């Protein structure tokens, strides 16, 4: 049974907790305003466009097609990524390569990022290490959906 006194005290304590947060954080803000170093900051905010959180090394973001030493994409148009893609956002058109060791190259390699779910299955499936998701680019907003369809020119790097 909660007595009225207990509930009253709980209400007061709630106010004291938020007031404590206010005064402690204000102290840190004021000290930092006057360029005095403090152990912690008054806020946990990361001021995003200027300040960024470092991405973890295995973070999956925008794809890239890795290149051979001669500048050609490593991709051999085996269609494994297109097959495994659960969002069906990759489409590849193969073309013949004059080099008999390579045989096939992609004539078109399109990823529709508006459908991509960034699962990373394409990277796992690739036998040639030709596609990776390690560009670190996480800002892919566009005003039109068609701008989110990335072709070979944008994916090669």
């Amino acid at each position, binding site marked *: 049974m909660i007595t009225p006194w207990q509930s009253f005290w709980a*209400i007061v304590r*709630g*106010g004291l*907790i*938020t*007031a404590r*947060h*206010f005064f402690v*954080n*204000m102290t840190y*803000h004021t000290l930092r305003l006057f360029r005095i170093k403090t152990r912690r900051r*008054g*806020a*946990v*905010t990361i*001021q995003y466009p200027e300040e960024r959180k470092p991405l973890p090394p295995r973070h999956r973001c925008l794809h890239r097609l890795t290149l051979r030493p001669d500048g050609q994409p490593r991709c051999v148009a085996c269609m494994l990524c297109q097959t495994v893609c659960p969002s069906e956002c990759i489409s590849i058109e193969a073309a013949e390569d004059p080099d008999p060791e390579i045989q096939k190259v992609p004539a078109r390699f399109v990823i529709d990022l508006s459908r991509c779910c960034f699962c990373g299955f394409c990277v796992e499936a690739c036998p040639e290490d030709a596609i990776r998701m390690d560009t670190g680019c996480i800002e892919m907003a566009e005003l039109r959906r068609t701008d989110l369809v990335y072709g070979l020119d944008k994916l090669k790097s």
Partner: protein
Amino acid sequence: MSGAQGDIVSETLILVVKIVLGLIWLLGLGLYLTWLERKESAVMQDRIGANRASVFGLRLFGLFQPWADAIKMIFKEDFVPAFSRKFLHGLAPFLSFFFVAVTVAVMPFGDVLRLGGRTIRLQILDVNAGLLFVLAMLSLGLYGILVGGWASNSRFALLGGMRGAAQVISYEVALGLSLVGLVLVYPSLRLSTIVETQGGLLFGVLPKWGIFLQPLGFAVFFLAGLAETKRVPFDLPEGESEIIGFFSEYGGLKWGLFMLTDFLEIIIVSSLATTLFFGGWQVPWLGPEGFVFPWGGRWSLPHGLVVLFQALAFNFKVIFFCWLQILIRWTYPRLRFDQLMDLGWKLLVPLGLANIGLTALIMGLVG
């Protein structure tokens, strides 16, 4: 120009200047309370708060944010739903705003200012029933809610308006009762007299503020005042987080006017709490000639400095209460409607009545 005529002209001029300054004070403080609310809530929650609005790259902790918000709201479409009662729909926010803004007329900002042989009272209008005037205007502000909810012609808005009416009327009773004890102690309804009486000393040391004479009255008054502002612990009329309340059908500047009214109500409740319970413009032990300390010290000050101290004291106290109300708004969750009615009728009204009885008893025994 003859002397009497010149006197009327200058008196009118002074009054106009006082009205303009009072409105600037109220609206400016109301505007910056929106900034204070955002920043204070952010600091309480370990965030930073609005700090992006800038003028020529100058951010100043987001001090331009209220202006940016105001400009945004002015340029929004003035949308009036086809099913609403057009005239009343437009009138409601102005009713709500007017009845709150007009109460600033009786707030004493300071004692008299002597300027060039003239005595200017730092109060727009020294009404002899100032306290009743404020209470009456605060209850008339209810019409803004009720008319807004009804004229929107939408079920949610109407229900919000009805909840608002029930809440404001219930807490009006407690608010009135909590002040009866105060009127018994300082036998006056004139706000300037109440503040002047609080300049005296209790037991020769303590300033004779209402909080020391009427602690129970203050508790009831402050809780009822919080409910009058219709903000979060008591925001059932508007449902601030969901906006399913009396201003569901409002947008743009009209919505902004309702929102501004909330902030003005905070200021008015803070001013009332300051004026009635915390000595208004009184600084402890500051008389018209300077400080006179109860332990025998004395520190003479020129008249201008005394007036400045008094005005600063009033503003400091008002801003403290605004801060406290915002702290409360960002700490407590909303009451259920039955809890709200229980608090009003079963706790605050009996406490207010007990306060009257107790005050009368003590005053009868003491003298």
